[in-house]
């Protein structure tokens, strides 16, 4: 199990479009991936789950991956978030 904390610096936080990109990326990996904000954790492969966190710009989230290819999954997601989720 690996995890890393990142800050969302894109324009609009995890709105539909950035959330779609994030979920799409998570779906490419065979392992389980979660996103946590505060004490709530959701499946990163679920668009509705990710939207339900209502992560705003500048807020911090933790990405957690567990299973086969967890390192690669974590790296890919953190990079995507840090690159601004398509709207840097």
């Amino acid at each position: 199990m690996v995890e890393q904390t990142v800050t969302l610096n894109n324009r609009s936080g995890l709105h539909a479009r950035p959330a779609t990109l994030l979920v799409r990326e998570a779906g490419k990996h065979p392992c389980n991936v979660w996103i946590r904000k505060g004490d709530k954790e959701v499946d990163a492969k679920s668009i509705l789950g990710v939207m339900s966190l209502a992560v705003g710009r500048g807020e911090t989230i933790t990405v957690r991956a567990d299973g086969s290819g967890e390192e690669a999954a974590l790296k890919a997601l953190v990079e995507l978030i840090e690159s601004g989720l398509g709207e840097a």
Partner: protein
Amino acid sequence: MMTARILHGIGVSPGLAVGAAVWLRRATAEVPVRTLAENEVAGEQARLRDAVATARAEISALRERVAKDVGEAEAQVFDAHLAFLDDPAYTGEMERKIAAERVNAEAACRDVTEAMRTMLASLPDEYLAARADDILDVGGRLVRLLQGTAGLDLAHLPGPAVLVADELLPSDLSGLPAQVVGFAAARGSRTAHTAILARTMRLPAVYGLGESIEAIADGRTLVVDGDAGLVTVDPSAEEVERVQRDRQAQAELRARAEARAHEAAVTRDGRRIEVFANVGKPEDAAAAVAAGADGVGLFRTEFLYLENDHWPTEEEQYDAYRQVLEAFGDKPVIIRTLDIGGDKQLPYAKLPAEENPFLGLRAIRWCLAEPEVFRTQLRALLRASRHGNLWIMFPMVESVTELREAKAWVARCREELVQEGVEVRADIPLGVMVETPAAALTADVLAREADFFSIGTNDLTQYTLAADRGNADVAHLYDPLHPAILRLIRMTCDAAAKAGIQVGMCGEMAGDAALTELLIGLGLQELSMSSAFVPMVKEQVRGVDTAAARVKADAAAGAESPDAARTVL
């Protein structure tokens, strides 16, 4: 003999249509519910998966169509819909529920959709909460596919039909049979996804009919007037015939207009009228070029500021301006500097709340008070100028002092850039957006120092008539055909003609082909509008005789009321 009844709404897609009312009642609460036998579970899950696959195909097709006809940005709405279909918390949860609770797929779909809708609607973020409608749309589509119907049987419409609903959702509009000729809805606005789609499909639509929509019974004949925002129930036979003739004539006119959209618009007596497009985002430039626009009459720069999490940098702005300028080559592109005030919220900077933001620190006033923001924008504009034919326009100017100050900032930025060795186009016209009565009344003074005028009729009307059209109690007073507005327009045009500078119009009025003759008669040389209206306005220009138009315009400006002005036209 039935008497016609006229219902008032908002025209969201222009044109006239006549057809039988077909009510679209959303039956989410009425799905069949049954308990499954153990050996039915796998089959029910497979039935759900089939419906999901079909929904995915339908939404992808819709997405492609919108991307092509409207734009990539609008199409991306459907990416979220597609993502819902793959969501373990959504369709995955439905499958789980079918097995765990032994319920049929329709019931599972309804329950999970409702749970997700409630979750989304409760989110503190307004934008995410609005996605509640999206999930309802996807859920409705799945139920429809599961039931193997269109919710109502649109496949067997006997003749032309007008779809009637409380609110239309994007899924209602995919795979519509050709018999559907128009829409009427109780709720919704011009910016609703389905309003955009209706315009794309050229289907007249009237929304915002409110409770009066209940007066429409299934099967009654309706006339939808998407220009006037009216729906007539049980029109007379003469009216129906008139509408049908009119539709025929309109279709012929439109075909002719589109065939000649890329030709210049010249009046019968040989006057060239520039027909420009209003552009809100760089992505819309291609559509404007394709529609035949001779240039851009208004490029709004607000999106750079509103859809951002920081003040847009010089580089970000430069990229956006360059994109539009390059799309139009050597055709003029009028870019308006930031038009913002206390009625707008920027996520990264709080603009001071004001008692009366429309009379407050906004547009050029705000820019002159915040010179760093203004300077960044001007530098980006000047740097982009070498990529096309840039004109810069200042909004809400009401005195020559403001114009001079703004021009001084342009000169200062130009000097800076030249010293930095940056190439800046030498001949950049600097103009005034005439949208206050003060600017129109002193247009002769402003014309001495402005290189062009563009009349913003939306604000000019609201400021002159002191009526907010968003306020239902006074919206009827908001009428750009008020002789006061017509006289201010004429004054502005006269002053421009005297000074030898170009005068155009970029308010909504400019895109109304029914007013083209009047506007030419008042003296306008350029008209700027939504791309969709460009071909029709160009065609309208070709039928105008300037001398006759002047006579009409003078009569309208001299009329005693807006209604009297209308009868002149």
